[in-house]
């Protein structure tokens, strides 16, 4: 188990009659960032809550840092930090009281806890009551609390939800630094634009089942299509249009003003660009646009609804 910080095997969970997780299995390696995506109700939050020990499961096994989460819950939770989708702090405490309480629970020295607070630029807020903080600040505090003691695994449920652009960028930077320090991050999100930038691998859930587990680049290649834009002047654009039609039979080639546009797979894109280059047809510009992640996830999950 040394090469895996989190192992989930055959996890099954029901809410009443409804099966919300159906034999989900995956692992997270040290220094890896894994994103969990899927449509609403796919089981993303439930999966994370089962891992953290907040939700009970009827079958399967969760191991965190070698500790069985069901039987050695406290030791397992010592290996992780958790940021809930809507984090709430007990009672009516100040930021300092929260940091002191959670540092105490995680057995983190005061100096180390304050360093985490400084890293997330909360040191100016220590005397404030949590109720007085803005939503973004409260989320930042929850992130600080979850990362106290630098646990080997961070579990984040919709970490970017409700954050403004600047805070989102800070969060991405935080996750990047966390990964660079050799630790792992598992996060559920529906902000799919973050996936190529943040995640090494993606777990796509649909109706409680894992329908894709692999590199985020593979998610785009496997399910989506690319758009190829070629710009040429006058007769050149007609020549480009004909060349693409010949290279990509069955594909619709359109002309919009000076641009010739075709949607195709990754292999077809490479073939078309190669033939375009070899043909010597003069072109002014070539652009490609990868299929949006939303498209890829939708394609993967559509049949499982």
């Amino acid at each position, binding site marked *: 188990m040394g090469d895996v910080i989190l192992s989930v095997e055959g996890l099954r969970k029901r809410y009443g009659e409804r099966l919300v997780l159906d034999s989900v299995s995956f692992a997270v390696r040290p220094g890896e960032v894994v994103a969990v995506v899927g449509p609403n109700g796919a089981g993303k939050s439930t999966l994370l*809550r089962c891992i*953290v*020990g*907040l*939700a*009970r499961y009827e079958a399967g096994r969760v191991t965190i840092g070698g500790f069985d989460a069901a039987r050695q*819950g*406290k*030791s397992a*939770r*010592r290996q*992780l*930090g*958790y940021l*809930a989708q*809507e*984090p*709430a*702090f*007990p*009672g*009516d*405490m100040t930021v300092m*009281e929260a940091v002191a*309480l*959670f540092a*105490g*629970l*995680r*057995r983190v020295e005061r100096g180390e806890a304050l360093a985490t607070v400084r890293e997330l630029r909360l040191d100016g807020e220590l005397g404030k009551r949590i109720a007085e903080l803005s939503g973004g600040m409260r989320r930042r505090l*929850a992130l600080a*609390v*979850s990362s106290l003691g630098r646990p080997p695994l961070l579990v984040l449920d919709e970490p970017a939800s409700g954050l403004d652009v600047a805070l989102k960028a800070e969060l991405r930077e935080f996750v990047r630094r966390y990964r660079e320090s050799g630790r792992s991050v598992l996060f559920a999100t529906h902000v799919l634009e973050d996936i190529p930038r943040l995640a090494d691998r993606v777990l796509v859930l649909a109706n409680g089942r894992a329908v894709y587990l692999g590199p985020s680049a593979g998610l785009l290649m496997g399910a989506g299509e690319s758009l190829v834009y070629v710009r040429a002047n006058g007769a050149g654009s007609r020549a480009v249009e004909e060349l693409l039609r010949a290279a990509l039979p069955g594909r619709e080639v359109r002309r919009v003003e000076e641009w010739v546009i075709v949607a195709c797979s990754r292999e077809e894109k490479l073939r078309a660009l190669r033939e375009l280059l070899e043909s010597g047809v003069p072109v002014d510009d070539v652009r490609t646009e990868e299929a949006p992640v939303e498209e890829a996830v939708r394609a993967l999950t559509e049949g499982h609804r």
Partner: protein
Amino acid sequence: MREIGLLAQQELREAARSRWLPAFGFGLAFVVWLAASAQATGPAFGGGFNRTTAGLLNVVLVVVPAFGMMLGALRWAGERERGALALVLAQPVGRTELLLATVLGCWLGVGLAIAFGLGLGGALLVLFVPLGSVREYVFFLLVAGALAGASVSLGVLFGVLGGGRLRAFGIALFAWLLFTVAYDLFFVALFAAAEPSGRLFVLAALGNPVEAARVLTVLFVQPDLEVLGPIGAYLRDRLGVGAAAALLSSALVLWVVLPLAVASALFRQQDV
């Protein structure tokens, strides 16, 4: 243990911050002052601490269970509803540890309010009545503290059972009515309908923390038949004051431990 200490401290801090706990403490002090001043001006002047204690007992037996149960139920269910329990339980903290810390913190809060209210009241009482029978008054204070523990423990159990604040409040209110009003009426009706057995007397005394606290206090403060009632009189006659007090004290301890154990067993099966 460290985790329990930290969380109980936090509970106590929250209890101290709330307006209800100081209000409860000052309310109790005011009631003691009223009782003492009535005693000083009325015909019963000279009854000392015992007379005042007997008078206060009825107030404490109603107010302490109400406050303890409501506090336990609403603290637990409220924090759960807000999602704060999830944040705590995502730390290396056991579920039973969190329950224990909540009961301890709330108990300590109510206990301090009782100590403040009855203690301040007792100090004021010295101004009106001769300083005698203080030992019994302190014993009464301890029994009130134990009853607070049982009430808080039951309250937290109701919080676990209820899930949300509203349901937890409903269960706690129902239980309070049951323990303080319906229980007595039930046994009065039962004793009137049939010749009560010794076992029934014991059951009646131990099956309700409020009744156990009442009989235990009266045993020490004014152990005559009229005030003890049939249940207390039976226990005193059959077991003697010492053994009866030990039995009732154990019952109060069990009333703290058992609800907590049931709450722990239930909560371990629940999602947070």
